[in-house]
């Protein structure tokens, strides 16, 4: 009886998540059938004509599809890598800060951007990187000609990755900081007695201590290889940089909602889901092998 009382609130917390999952992930699965139909809204999902793999065939003929798949994977992989390394380095550095209240302050400030919306940030960054923005003023001090960052296919992907890291690294660092506090202080004492310097302690105690966490996060992130962040890109891009930053999600949005090609958009989305599914499975296998992580 005691046990029931104690676990009840956990279940309560799970329910909203499950409802959400069913409404937005399971129910739409049924409509994925649209990808194999010539979907007509009036006739609905049951009355529309079946066309087999026509939509997929057309998809692979489109000159855009190679670009969008490449962009999605490229941007997502770069973000995953950067979002692993930057927070780790930051957490390690922060861990060495001795003044306690400074540490707290810095930690709080850097994770604030995580809570800002991309709609807002897109406007801010547009000004920062515009022709008479801070960035161009800064580089003009070094005698560099102004650069139109937002319409350069060379710079824009870097901006997308960089701003994403800026927004998320503080939040990502929390997990590492937690792992760092979990390291037994006895190990540091022993290292100190053995005459290890701060740097030696970092190499031989701290890093091995967070290694499993890093591996776990890295493998779990694999599942996101097809997610390059619609919110961010949709709010920041423009036609001139479609070539380097148009991703699957933005493409599906434009084709499906702007151009009313429901079936084609669904086909693209479904393809993305299939690839994601494979990657999630792989990442789970890897996670359970290298980091002993198990769901079931």
């Amino acid at each position: 009886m005691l046990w029931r009382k104690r676990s009840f609130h956990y279940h309560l917390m799970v329910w909203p998540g499950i409802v959400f999952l069913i409404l937005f992930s399971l129910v739409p699965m049924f409509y994925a059938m649209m990808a194999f139909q010539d979907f007509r809204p009036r006739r609905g999902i049951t009355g529309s004509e079946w066309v087999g793999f026509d939509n997929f065939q057309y998809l692979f003929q489109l000159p855009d599809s190679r670009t969008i798949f490449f962009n999605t994977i490229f941007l997502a992989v770069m973000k995953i890598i950067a979002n692993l390394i930057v927070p780790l380095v930051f957490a390690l550095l922060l861990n060495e800060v001795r003044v306690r209240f400074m540490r707290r302050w810095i930690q709080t400030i850097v994770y604030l951007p995580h809570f800002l919306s991309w709609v807002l940030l897109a406007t801010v960054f547009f000004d920062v990187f515009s022709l008479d923005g801070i960035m161009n003023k800064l580089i003009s001090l070094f005698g560099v000609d102004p650069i139109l960052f937002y319409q350069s296919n060379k710079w824009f992907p870097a901006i997308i990755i960089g701003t994403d890291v800026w927004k998320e690294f503080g939040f990502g660092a929390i997990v590492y900081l937690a792992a760092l506090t979990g390291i037994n202080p006895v190990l540091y004492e022993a290292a100190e007695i053995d005459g290890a310097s701060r740097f030696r302690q970092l190499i031989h105690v701290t890093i091995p201590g967070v290694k499993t966490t890093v591996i776990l996060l890295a493998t779990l992130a694999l599942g996101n290889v097809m997610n390059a962040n619609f919110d961010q890109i949709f709010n920041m891009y423009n036609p001139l940089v479609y070539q380097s930053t148009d991703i699957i999600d933005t493409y599906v949005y434009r084709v499906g909602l702007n151009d009313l090609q429901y079936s084609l958009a669904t086909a693209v989305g479904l393809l993305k889901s299939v690839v994601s599914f494979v990657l999630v499975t792989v990442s789970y296998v890897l996670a359970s092998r290298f980091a002993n992580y198990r769901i079931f």
Partner: protein
Amino acid sequence: MANYRTSKWMAASIALAVLLSACGSGGGSDAGDGGKSSTSSDAGDKGTTTTPSDAKGDALAYEKYSEPVSISVGFKIPDDKLGAGDTNDNNPVSRYLEGLLNIKVTHAWEAKGDDAFKQKVNLAIASNDLPDAMVVDRNQLRKLIDNDMVEDLTDVYAKYGSELVRAMYDSTKGLALADATVDGRIYGMPNVAIEADAPSLLWIRQDWLDKLNLQAPKTVDELAAIAKAFIEQDPDGNGKKDTLGLTGDKQVVYGQKPNPNGFDSIFSSYHAFPKNWIKDKDGNVVYGSITPENKDALAKLAEMYKAGLIDPQFALYKETQEPIVANKTGMFFGPWWMPYWPLADAVANDTKAEWKAYATPLDKDGKFVTHMAPVTDRYLVVRKGYKNPEAAVKLLNAFTRIERRSDPNKDEMKKLDDYATANTVQNRNYYPFDLLLDYSDAVVKRYKDVQAALKGELDPATFDPDTKQVYDYSVIEKENPKKNMDAWKPAKAYELGGGVLATTDMEKIYSLFYGTTKTMETKWTSLQKLENETFLKIIVGDLPVDAFDTFVSDWKKLGGDQITKEVSDLVAG
């Protein structure tokens, strides 16, 4: 035991979750359906029982329902700020219309801006959940007719269409209604665009020109020279080099009905008509964006962009009018109504600004060439199954009568006008549907009449209400320039924009085709994307001008040839 309990709990919680979600969606759809069916059946009953059959013509067109009828619409939210206490669905305009016709208009949803509105309509179509009536564009109308989602309005229009609405549809010689007609049945009430909306004129700061001792440009090269002077010679006199040359839009050209910042007129001065279907020298139908003339225009634009004469960031603005409103630029392209928007905002920010319109640049023979626009591009449709389709037509009758200033209820009209002035709102933004009707030659005719009256050649008392209002505002503006922006807008739009259109001899190119063919349905989107990206990249220098040739051959290969054939067949047949 613990294990067993866990799984039991697990099962219970999942079951409950499923139940909850079922309830949630069930409840939602219940409420939705309930709301809809009750309104439509209510409305239906009352509509059928209370419509007397003895009324005819205009008496019937504006007849008040004896029992309230309700209609849900999709509403486009304007920029205007209403007076205190008023809302988008409850304001003087909506209250007047409700009082007049006893039709309760409710907003099924609202969207701000053209893009958001279009997406909402698309979403409504995709989910088969239409409001009772809404305004759609050409592609959406076609989709709705194909899917049998909208009411046939032929009989309703025949019975309830007002004299005024009919007269304006007739002024297009049947073209407007034909556009919304399939197999002899009318499925939407089209707008009537005025012819004057098509040409894109050069708007230029006359005070800057005068200050720098420059003449208005005639050719593209002169235009470029002025852009250079505007950038380098500090025309706004603030001692900073912060002015731009020509501004642009990321769509490059609008093709049919221009908004601010299209390069349409530059292309047409080279006899290139992108986004229109035209006949080539041999009489074959050809898509206007792939003719060799485009290459010349693009080469010129690229040269100007490289020299910094076109706003370097023109493709990046979220809203194209930003540099105009901020008074950063002294020249841009736009149709005759620019003084209404965005120039009114620009002049409000800088009252020294004196804008003028010119029909330039000219082609090599010294002639102004322009593409024209379709007669209609928006349609009022009624959801299939809505019981009172005539309510939508009656609303159209009523607000068209207000807009054309022919409403006989003078006191009420005065109140609406006063309200609009007091709160600087435009009443037209609060009609249930954003669908204006006018005579297709209205602008030029009104301009000529008003000018004649100002010279004392015509008696303004004989004018129709629309012309009279333009005349009155022109008088107010003449006496007290820029004091009353409500007067400034129409006075300047007609004087400058209308004036240029009335006095310029133009070569008008009409597109041969505005609809959608079978192949277009699937391939047009990617072709347009290819076109837009290529044009943009050539202008900003990401691609060499010769990339245009590659674009043409790609365009043909990717379905363009097939589409050209289909369009030729449709035009010929």
